[in-house]
């Protein structure tokens, strides 16, 4: 306080009469707010992904730790730069198909939903695009079919959820069962071999030393990032997931947008179906098994809020890469799938716990505390 200002608080016993009023001069106000501004570091929650950025740094830390574990357990391999480069490519290639699915999943979850049917959609699209009839139209026809099947199944999900008012969990769970059933009946439970060299080359080829699948992942991630952060579609997604009522009252068509989100997820599944078919040079009804779990887990680890309204594409990508790295780590150490799954489970739980501690609002904390004492 400046000396010109009487400090009426000095003696609380005596009621202070405002004999000399307007005590505060504007200069002082300015000082106070400057002070406020200079207090503390630039905060982690500053807008425009600042929060996500910090969290992503954490994920990169996790990734670094995994690499250190790899280097410690297999020093001979990690000593060879050629092997390391190839291993990085192997990890990225491993991450590519689930990564594409996860981008779509991230949108759905940020938009306040969940899509349990992604694995089934990948299988259905894969099977549909490798039927003899479809293959007769060539690679273009196959790609077109996979994408259209993905989008259409996604649209069915979307319509059921936004206009039929089904809970997303139920609607997509039903779709999971139905789509796999349809895939099985189309393929007659057979493995359908892809005879298109164009399709089969996608997974087999590299361009400038990098597998095409990794380029596809990169393109989808980039597109996802741009759409989420730079377009009205992305903005609507965050609004619809963060506070649907506020979005509705702001004039956003919440239902139509929700529907489109599932279609987008379906589109990603269609792309993934082509990638996976290419990798296996065939498709079958059981392919992409449990992809929904991998995609959801990666998104959550990447910091996407399960309740919607918040998440980043980069975080999801890091989540997928972390999982792929773990798989890779276990593979090079010759450890079992079972041990690997246990570690993955642990990581998922840890990620969700961290999320809960970070996003609890004061009121929720209060309510929770009270409830805890009650029981």
């Amino acid at each position, binding site marked *: 306080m400046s000396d010109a200002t009487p400090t009426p608080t000095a003696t609380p016993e005596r009621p202070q009469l405002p004999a000399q009023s307007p005590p505060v001069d504007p200069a002082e106000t300015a000082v106070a707010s400057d002070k406020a501004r200079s207090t503390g570091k630039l905060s982690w929650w500053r807008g425009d992904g600042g929060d996500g950025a910090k969290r992503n740094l954490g994920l990169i830390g996790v990734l670094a730790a995994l690499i250190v574990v790899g280097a410690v357990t297999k020093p001979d391999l990690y000593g060879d730069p050629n092997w390391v480069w190839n291993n990085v490519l192997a990890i990225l290639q491993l991450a590519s198909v689930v990564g594409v699915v996860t981008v779509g999943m991230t949108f759905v979850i940020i938009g306040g939903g969940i899509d349990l049917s992604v694995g089934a959609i990948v299988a259905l699209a894969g099977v549909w695009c490798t039927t003899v009839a479809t293959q007769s139209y060539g690679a273009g026809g196959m790609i077109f079919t996979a994408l259209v099947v993905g989008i259409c199944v996604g649209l069915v999900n979307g319509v059921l959820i936004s206009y039929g008012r089904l809970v997303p969990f139920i609607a997509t769970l039903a779709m999971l069962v139905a789509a796999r059933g349809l895939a099985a009946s189309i393929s007659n439970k057979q493995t359908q071999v892809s005879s298109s060299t164009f399709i089969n080359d996608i997974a087999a080829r590299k361009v400038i030393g990098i597998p095409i699948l990794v380029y596809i992942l990169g393109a989808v991630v980039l597109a996802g990032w741009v759409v989420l952060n730079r377009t009205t579609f992305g903005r609507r997604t*965050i609004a619809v997931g963060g506070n649907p009522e506020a*979005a509705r009252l702001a004039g956003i068509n919440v239902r139509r947008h929700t529907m489109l989100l599932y279609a987008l997820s379906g589109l990603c599944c269609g792309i993934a179906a082509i990638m996976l078919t290419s990798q296996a040079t065939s498709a079958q009804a059981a392919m992409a098994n449990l992809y929904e779990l991998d995609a959801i887990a990666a998104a959550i680890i990447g910091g996407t809020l399960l309740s919607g309204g918040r998440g980043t594409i980069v975080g999801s990508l890091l989540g997928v890469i972390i999982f792929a790295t773990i798989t890779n780590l276990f593979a090079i150490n010759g450890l079992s799938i079972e041990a690997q799954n246990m570690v993955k489970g642990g990581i998922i739980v840890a990620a969700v716990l961290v999320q809960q501690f970070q996003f609890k609002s004061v009121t929720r904390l209060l309510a929770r505390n*009270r409830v805890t004492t009650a029981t």
Partner: protein
Amino acid sequence: MSEEETVALPEDDPATASAEAVAEAPLVEAPADTVAGEVVLRLTDVVKTFPGVRALDGVQLEVRAGEVHCLLGQNGAGKSTLIKVLAGVHQPDSGLVEWRGEPATFTNPQAAMKAGIATIYQELDLVEDLSVAENAFLGHEYRSFGFVRRGRMARHTRQILSRLGHGEIPPGRMVRSLPAAGKQIVSMARALSHEARLIIMDEPSAVLAHDEVGNLFRIIRELTAQGIAVIYISHRLEEIREIGDRVTVLKDGRTTAANLPARDTPTRDLVSRMTGRTIEYVFPDRPADDAAGADLLQVQGLTREGEFADVSLNVRAGEIVGIAGLVGSGRSELLETIYGARLPEAGTVRMDGKVLRPGVGAAVRAGMGMAPEERKSQALLLGEPIYRNVTLATFGRYARLGFTNAAKERAEADRIAETLELRPRDVDRPVRTLSGGNQQKVVVGRWLLGGTKLLLLDEPTRGVDVGARAELYQVIRALAAQGVGVLLVSSEVPEVLGLADRVLVMREGRVVREAAAGELDENTVLDLVMAGSLMEGAPA
């Protein structure tokens, strides 16, 4: 005071007939050793910082038993932060809190509650999917042998509610289904269900209508008569004059005046200590009466069962129409129905002579915008930056080919932040970190960006301080001067009369009077509005 006459006395209320049954649980029991006039709470140099903000920067406060101690300060001055420190929600960085003569630290809300501090928070903190009674007694349920004594809880809750003048709220009702004002009553009931020595009320009257404020004051007087201390926060100076004993003023997180007498301190002194300047608290001048243009909005026979019936009204371009009425008179529902957020059972809404298709989308395309009543649940994305909240309804307009234009959005938000005195001014902050009044400015500011033909404002100044309020009135009037029509709902009759050109009075879902604002005065409007509440209060 007129509200005392209109309040139904608790003895008349059938719900209190069972008073003996809950005799072991009186409304609020003052602890036996309460001494009136004794200093119960003293704060010295309390400091609390958040990342990037010094919310409290040396606060002094002294509260005595049996007094109503008012906290005054602009939006963002630190009032809510201060009471959260007292309630154990936040821990101070430094400074001394003395509770009944002993230094105290409340590490969590339960600790403060145990010590006898009950709090009504500014933002509702109810569990939506529990019943009214469960919310009121959350954390301190009546129990025996591990079972919750639901009957006793329900009885006690009903008793508290009827003392609050709301015996009609069933204790078993889910909180989710209550309107905003009902929820406020429940959080008051929660605070009153504790055995407290100090009850803190953070803007309890912001959502309440005139008569309810009367009920609240009656309760506060009962409390203080028992030696319970009350800390009362409000931006309405008249209330502080009426109920307050002493006033402490905060500015930028510091105490700029302590223990002023609430009744005699001149308003300009209070205002200048709060704001550092003098504010002429006046409504902008009305333009010459032929200023309004053609009919913009025409509502014909609009009806929704149980909410409002057969409402017809019109708003002309450049005209501000105010709706006065009690909470529960159907005002907010009417606004939401006009806006397409609720489907009418009968009647039509026309914009520019064309019947609107149902749905918010059509209304927005036709040029309507609505600032809803409840900012947190209906309007804000709390985790998103301020600028994105300001442009939530308009970001599409600044976008090109589907790509958003964040720079333009920031600039627009900055402009609004400037006019409405948003603090802090930084539009990249998440809305979550704003004070309540500043959040409200974001909600209203969203529709002031221009491009809207008809504004529907539901309690636009809820929780907004005197200074910013005057600015807001100016902005609204300026928009009207540009030909925007405004339909305004407010619980504050002076606001409706001062700002609007024409006033509709609603009671029990019907328009009972329509007149130019100049033809009505506050008492006439209150009489019209209250007539309904008296009828409701009569035994069925």
